[in-house]
């Protein structure tokens, strides 16, 4: 995938991975990424939503308005079949890339 250097690709991966655990809304996704990375990664909230919409439009995730347990209306995203496939692809290539980078760093 040519656009792996693109930070968007990383954000995409994190979003898809988060949703693989179950449907969630934008804030939930941001929170999950922060918590799971032990606050190492902090999501740029301004680019989270355009990224979500891009994935929605591409058909990797579906969006639906639901009411959360706090009684708040939220746009909740869910992974589609295409999205699951996509996640697998970029997860693989990302791990390969990360492995490669790690090895290069070790040699340097």
């Amino acid at each position, binding site marked *: 995938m040519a656009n792996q250097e693109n930070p968007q690709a990383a954000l995409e991966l994190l979003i898809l991975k988060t949703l693989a655990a179950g449907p969630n*809304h934008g804030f939930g996704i941001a929170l999950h990424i922060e918590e799971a990375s032990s606050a190492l990664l902090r999501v740029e909230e301004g680019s989270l939503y355009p990224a979500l919409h891009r994935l929605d*439009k591409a*058909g990797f995730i579906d969006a639906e308005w639901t009411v959360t347990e706090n009684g708040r209306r939220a*746009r909740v995203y869910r992974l589609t079949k295409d999205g699951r496939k996509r996640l697998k692809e970029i997860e693989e290539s990302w791990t390969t890339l990360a492995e490669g980078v790690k090895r290069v760093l070790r040699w340097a």
Partner: protein
Amino acid sequence: MGMKDWFRRRPSDDEMREELEAHVAMRAEHDGVDEATARRRLGNTLRTREAMRRVWIAEWWDALRQDAHYTWRSWRRQPGFALGAVLVLALGLGSSTALFAALDRVLFRPLPFADFDRLVSVGVIVTPPGGSFAGRTESMPDRDYVRMWNTTPAPFEAVTSMDTWTCEIAEEQPEGVRCGDVEHNFLRVLGVRVALGRDFAPEDDVRAAPRGALISHALWVRRYGANPAVVERTLSLETAKGPMPRVPIIGVLPPEFDMPVEAADILLPSQLRPFAPAPFAAEIMPFARLKPGVTPERAEVMLAPQLSQISTSPGFRAEWRVRSLRDRRVGDAARVAWLLMGAVAVFLLIACVNVTNLMLARVAERRREFALRAAIGAGRVRLARLALAESLLLSLAAGGGGLVIAFALLRTFVAMAPPNVPGIADASMDVRVFVVAIVLVVITGVAIGVWPALSVLRAGGLEGLRSTSTASPGARPRVRFALVTTQIALTLALLGGSALLLRSLWKVVSVPLGFDAEHVITLTAGLSRTRYPTPEHATAFFDELLTRARATPGAISAALSDSPSPPRPPRGRIAITVEGRPIEPNAPQVPIAVRWVTPHYFETFRIPVIRGTRLESDGTGEPAVVLNESAERILFAGERAIGRRIRPAAFGFSNGQEVPNPWFTVVGVTAAVRNGQSLTDPPAPEVFLATRTGGPVPPLGLSRLSLRTTATPSDAVTFLRQITADLDPRQLVTIQTGNELLTTLTARPRFIASLLTAFAVLALLLAAAGLYSVASYLVLQRRRDIGVRIAIGASPRDVAQQVVSEAGRCIVAGALLGCALGWVGTRALQSQLYEVEALDPAAWTAAVLALSLVLLAAVFRPARHAAHVDPIAALRAE
């Protein structure tokens, strides 16, 4: 990726805002901070929302550009297809657009009056005993109007009335114009305000009150340079009855104002009340505004009890007619307009079917390409969308070409159109027309794209990849055959219609006219009342003109008249009294057409006189008159007319006093001469009053000279121009040959017939092209089968026959369907046909024959191809 995103729902702006607000609220709650802090963390929400919006828009646009680019490339590979399809559609779209532009004012455009759909024309139609006056419109005798409708009748909110007449502005630059008499409430009933000055007030509209005049915007600009100081200037008007006292101009009508019917440059109060009885009633045209919820039909019923109060002669039948103002203005033209619209719609439909067929052929050719693309990941929906995009682009390109065609066609339509289509002279390609053109382009684009797109959806499967060029004809050829059949059916309906119209046109052109206008040249001169102030001056001018015309080379006979040449109706219609028969008090007489002529008129036009004599030349005896047969019948009811005397109602004025007409002795009776509004109207009663030196003169003055000559028309025109210029170099004349006049009179059937024939011929060519393409495709697809059949001994003849018979089935099915369509559709045509039945067998046989011959010719080449298939090559191609 994202090939399906065309169909994903775009969230609304509100949804995007709400989503971000929800985020802010959750963040604030989670972090235990206020919303402002949480919002700051989200960054610039405006920009974020913009970025979200762009996600949806940008790619949509990109996809469209991609589709357009791809389509363009595929067109460049096959320019023949693209050019053909664009041309066919452009013809369809162009002719529809042009026809809409031409007929918009007849059918659709709102009238320039407030709430115009409640405005109606009201009146009675009077039918003489045992007959009808073709083309009569509703009107009311003025005295009945004043007497009966002093209070507004129940169905109406308000009533008003008008009448128009010819007048002349008798000032330094004399100008002939139309004047209108209207009631003071006329403009208010129509919902129109004056642009300048004031409207009429009730006190202007009282008999003998000082009159004021409203002038049209055009006259104001033309004559007064749009000077606002025109108000309170005065006008000198000259009427047929003599000069009128000067009238002050009190106001100017708005630029968009248009009289409900007829035209007028100057409006004057009609001053009907209090009513002063005159010996004969004048007919006026009432208009009314219906009360809300009352229909014209209902109004007729509500008025019915009043019918007995209308004064009619014994034996005459009267009936109310209430109809919408649009109907009154447009009349019969609406039917013609709908007919032509229907024809052009059918033509556009045929063009669409044709292009759909071409596109399906392309889909079939590219089946493997599509299957391959589908296999390597292009969604079928994406491919179908591509097909739809292609059709929209085709239609758009055709729309551009269509506009060019429409501009040219509209000019042709306007030039060709019969004179009685209202508003056609003003027709132009304006915004309304462009909007309609755009709507047509979109509808066409979708219409031609839906089927190919569906067929791509089906072709996208893997079976498309597996199948080879020898695949047995599947669903698509059948669809294509069905489309061609439809096309043939529609074409036959058009062909049948045009055959009927052509036959009818032939009958109209060969109608017995009762005169011979060939080699007759007519010169018309409207003499100015300023330079020819008295009838004597005018008579002197025309007498001299007549003498000189008779001396031109080749002249056989010449005569003068006050009216247009036959078959045009005379200028005047007037009630006529028969000597020795008492006048019914309060009963209007039958108005009869009156034509003033000099001796030799009958020779000049070769009008046969069947009883009595022609007008004696230079006779100085008592005033003489010649009747036509139907006038004799109406006036004398079978009694002998020759030698009896009749008197036209007084219409001569001298010093403001009515001069009674003298008694005219009937000296002859002519055969029927056509004198209606159209050539096909049966001859109406008419009397020819003799004008002789020293005798009674026509009240409207002589205006025409007719010359029968052996000179060529162009020579004769030159001679006539020369003698007029010698006599009075300032006098303008128009010169028309008899044949030119007949041509303008047949303009309407000619127009309809030529338009429909043009559509039919084009449709036939398209049908031939469609059938050719389907048959060729079929032969190509069955090459292997055909090869096998030839290999096992079928003769080329058999093979060719099979192709022809298959196409023949298409033709027969199409022809049958077309006859059925025609059987229903041509009912609408009947009113435009003269002495031809809509189901005329000869016309339909001709149409079917023409259709079959052309279509069979189209199948010839594919059939020959089939016959020449080389079995070995066909089998090896596998």
